């Protein structure tokens, strides 16, 4: 793949959380990249390390207890992990912006939304009061808020959940960032509102040609918006590929299990497949492949060796040597 097309690349990232004697390996050697104008989804269950991976990009992992042990995050030719806090502030919000899950807790209840959006602009750009106001109105209009002039004076509690998330997106867009990281932005919303927000992300991306790194646990959302997908499990990338490869031709037992366990009308009357057991505690992950205790294809080697990434071609990779051999590929 062409190097110049790459916007951000995370290489071998390891983030551990220490508390007392226990050490939770939340992110354990994760590599992924986002290319220009691309929507990339990281999908996984709670505790798989997807949010921590995203927070590390922005340098927002609380230290202690969190600690970035290893890895590089390359953005615009520099390793973000080596930057000082002051240098990081220039990137945060300006080049890389973030949209969080719960808009009501991320917005400050005692400031109007106009104040909060203009703050995002003022930090990075010198701008006069009048044009600042105009900019805020335009941003609100871009994210589909009706009558933006009046909304500027509103407080977060006066808006509906969907509108609050639109305001969050407006703040993220304030400095025309190259990358927006959205961490479960629609999880707290109703399905019809979710559909509107997803459509909004699509529209913004087309208009402003930016990249989106979208973090979610919902495979339905992934199918609807992603160009490429990374499936995470217990701190590792289990599988990566484009939407077609992941949904039609999954090669990792975890991805296969997840897809088979989704209920739908067409599976009526049939028993749902369910992955046995539960997600391991990040502090006590099983040795070898972290998925092996729940895996239907496990071999003796799975409990001792950390699985290698196996290449199925055309950007489709899965961390399961057992299935790779079964399919007649040689390692």
């Amino acid at each position, binding site marked *: 793949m062409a190097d110049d097309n790459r916007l951000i690349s995370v290489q071998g990232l390891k983030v551990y959380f220490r508390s007392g004697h226990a050490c939770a390996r939340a992110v354990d050697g994760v590599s992924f990249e986002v290319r220009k104008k691309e929507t990339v989804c990281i999908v996984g269950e709670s505790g798989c390390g997807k949010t921590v991976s995203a927070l590390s990009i922005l340098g927002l992992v609380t230290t202690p207890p969190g600690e970035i042990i290893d890895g590089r995050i390359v953005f615009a030719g520099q390793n973000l992990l080596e930057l000082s806090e002051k240098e990081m502030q220039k990137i945060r919000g300006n080049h890389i912006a973030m949209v969080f899950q719960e808009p009501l807790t991320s917005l400050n209840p005692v400031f109007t939304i106009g104040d909060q959006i203009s703050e995002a602009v003022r930090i990075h750009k010198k701008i006069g009061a009048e044009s600042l106001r105009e900019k805020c109105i335009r941003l609100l209009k871009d994210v589909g808020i009706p009558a933006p002039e009046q909304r500027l004076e509103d407080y977060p509690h006066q808006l509906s959940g969907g509108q609050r998330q639109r305001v969050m997106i407006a703040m993220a867009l304030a400095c025309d960032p190259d990358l927006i990281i959205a961490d479960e932005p629609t999880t707290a919303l*109703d*399905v*019809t509102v979710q*559909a509107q927000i997803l459509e909004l992300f699509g529209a913004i991306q087309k208009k402003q040609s930016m990249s989106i790194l979208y973090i979610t646990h919902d495979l339905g959302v*992934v199918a*609807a918006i992603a160009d490429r997908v990374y499936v995470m499990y217990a701190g590792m990338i289990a599988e990566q590929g484009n939407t077609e490869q992941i949904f039609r031709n999954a090669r990792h037992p975890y991805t296969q299990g997840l897809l088979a366990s*989704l*209920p739908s009308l067409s599976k*009526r009357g049939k028993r*749902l497949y369910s992955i046995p057991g539960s997600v391991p505690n990040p502090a006590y992950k099983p040795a070898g492949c972290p998925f092996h205790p729940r895996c239907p294809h496990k071999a003796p080697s799975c409990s001792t060796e950390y699985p290698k990434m196996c290449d199925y071609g055309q950007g489709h990779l899965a961390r399961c040597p057992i299935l790779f051999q079964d399919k007649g590929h040689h390692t």
Partner: protein
Amino acid sequence: MNSKNRNNHIILCVKDLKKYFPIRRGFLQKISGWVKAVDGVSFEIERGKTMGLVGESGCGKTTVARLILKLLALDQGKIIYQGLDISGFSEKEMRPHRKEIQIVFQDPFGSLNPRMTVGQSVEEGLRILGIKSHTMRKARLEKLMEMVGMSPDSTDRYPHEFSGGQRQRIGIARALSVEPSFIICDEPISALDVSIQAQIINLLKDLQDQLGLSYLFISHDLNVVGYLCNTIAVMYMGQVMEYASAEEIFDNPHHPYTQSLLAAIPDSGPGKKLEPTLLKEDAFDSSAALQGCKYRSMCSIEAPRCRKEQVLFEKIGEGHFARCWKAMKK
């Protein structure tokens, strides 16, 4: 509902259920208005079957559940359980019937007492059943834990020692302890991880097959409801907008709200794009609650008539009801 036979078939029937909550304002806390949380809900659930109640947050799903359980006093309407009208029952009259209807909550951690072991929580129901012998309670407890797929030695542990999925299994065991025939599941899987959801869905289905349970399954997830339920009621702002078999709702939805909900489900399969265009963007208008159709401000096919007339919940096909006069004409 003419023959007695058919009546026997129906485990629960609610008719025109209404619950309004007062809005109080000012120093004297005068009532300044009403929130019509449930505003005319009717449906039937057949014995041994599952009915799905879907709708977005705040549409009154949980209020309906609490009215059926008689945790809230209803303002109007009838609740007929096994042919018995329980709507006017006092707390005392209700008590012998309480164990018949049980509930499984959304948040299994919030609904288990953190200072009681799991065994104590589940055993409490057995005591209420009147099992006095300690050994018999113990045996029954072990049987219950086995039924929900938990090892019997987990009874001495506390709720925080379990994962979300296990806690939900315990919540189900607690509901089953009093041998109910009808269980209300209020979003039982939405707090769980994706890989655990299928386990709980399978468990609920197995228990239904084994014990002949009937379920009212409340959810906002249409995929789950479509998989699990025999019939579906779609709620919007306190009213049932459409009620039909699951197949009918998915293949032949008549109400514009059902249609837009179905269009908004992100389906797992690439290629299917969302069609949110059916919805008017942020057009929600609460004054719509005053007169005419409650959905009209969001509706894509709104007509002047929707503004004036009270829309009735009418039969449009065999076992298919909708609250839209345009659906009638179809």
